[in-house]
């Protein structure tokens, strides 16, 4: 029994900082798919709304992240377009003015980062459901691949999460135009997902029947990222 205890202790010591190695890591990633399924089918509700706050409750700061070396910026905002393509009946090519002319949603919600921090901020923009109505996805389109001009950063989303009433393409933050640090000119936002799922610096949304990966998702972060 002492031998077992010593063996266990040795194994534990060897396990320090261990991601599971060649044998267990793939199993952990496979199991993460099960958690994605549970997150999508058991916990996620297409109608339940995240708690909203009073603008006066906004946090003093909200950190911003991008993967490029410098803050990604569009040279000519007038020339910027959001491309909507893939398995859709009506591909779209939308300017910021066109997006701003669409029905507008705004809310003050808590932002949850996978790291464990949170911050309250206000966001305004176009519900993704409005875009979906206009581009009319073909049957079989189950996912959207949101792509950015931030060094190829992207996120794959399930259609149900994208259609949630609080999932928006935000062009504004805290009553101001979206700042470059937070994804100007357009970013994905939703209080139903962790921050790393909320693609900044958007350039396209592509409807597909194959589950798209994502920058962090491909490195082992949970794909669904729902909260």
């Amino acid at each position, binding site marked *: *029994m002492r031998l077992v205890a010593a063996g*266990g202790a040795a194994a*534990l*010591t060897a*396990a*320090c*900082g*261990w*991601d*599971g190695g060649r044998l267990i*890591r793939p*199993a*952990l*990633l496979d*199991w*993460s798919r099960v*958690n994605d399924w549970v*997150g999508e089918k058991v*916990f*996620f*509700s297409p109608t*339940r709304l*995240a*708690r909203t706050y009073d603008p006066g409750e906004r*946090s*003093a*700061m*909200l*950190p911003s992240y991008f993967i490029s070396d410098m803050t990604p910026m569009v040279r000519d905002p007038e020339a910027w377009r959001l491309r909507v393509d893939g398995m859709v009946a009506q591909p779209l090519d939308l300017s910021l003015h066109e997006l701003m002319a669409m029905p507008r949603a705004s809310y003050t919600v*808590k932002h*949850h*980062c*996978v*790291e*464990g*921090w*949170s*911050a*309250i901020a206000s966001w305004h923009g176009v519900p993704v459901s409005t875009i979906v109505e206009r581009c009319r996805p073909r049957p079989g389109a189950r996912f959207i691949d949101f792509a950015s001009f931030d060094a190829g950063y992207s996120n794959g989303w399930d259609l149900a999460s994208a259609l949630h009433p609080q999932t928006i393409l935000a062009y504004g933050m805290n009553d101001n135009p979206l700042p470059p640090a937070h994804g100007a000119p357009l970013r994905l936002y939703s*209080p*139903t997902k962790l921050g790393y799922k909320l693609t900044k610096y958007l350039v396209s949304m592509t409807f597909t029947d194959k589950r798209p990966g994502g920058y*962090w998702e491909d*490195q*082992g*972060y*949970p794909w669904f990222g*729902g*909260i």
Partner: protein
Amino acid sequence: MSDSPAPATPVVPARTPVRRHHWIVRLTHWATVVLLAGMIASGLQIYEAYARFGNRGGPFLPSPFDGTQWPHWSRLGGWLAGALNWHFALMWPLVTFGLLYLAYLVKSGEWRALLFMPRDVPGTVQMVRYYLRLRRDHPHQGKHNPLQKLAYTGVIVLGVLAVLTGLAVYKPTQLGWLTALFGGFQAARYWHFWIVWLFVGFTIAHIILVFVVDPASLRAMLTGWYRGTPRRKSTGVRSCDWSRQAGRRR
């Protein structure tokens, strides 16, 4: 001289091994040891990504561990994503074994011997008096003394709270009511974190007491059979009758 052999019956009857722990209890006990160690180690790695409690910009909940980086050996997962995948995988068997154990407690009726009830309060006072040497003889007890009942009931409550605060942190939007119940996302993180140290404290006390008071109980938790006599000054009121009865019941 023709001495007849000594009578076969010893004067003091040998203590016959008694059946103490059902296999479900032993299985769930040791599975919990391993799984909880994995949950805590991956949890410490997760903690490192944001080692404080409060919205960005504050205010922050008071904690002496703000900004603490835990020693390398105590962390599991290598980085945040690896730790999350361990944490979200181990949570399933941990909850499953926990539910199996609770189901066994209810089904077998053993919860009666374990659950701390208001009527155990006077007995608790007597046990504390005994341990503080204000009382010489060991108070009469059943399978567990009232202090043990308090500890084991407390650790079950702790387990339930660990799962609930974990869910509150895991799905603060979908389970918003639960998160609100714990005072919000950051407060739920805070409780989830502090529960760990209560578990650690319980485990340390538990291990010390096993070896100091009743080392034979370790073998009982492994094999199911209890063969020891607890090291106690008491002269007999306390007995192992409970376990003989329990043995017959099975």
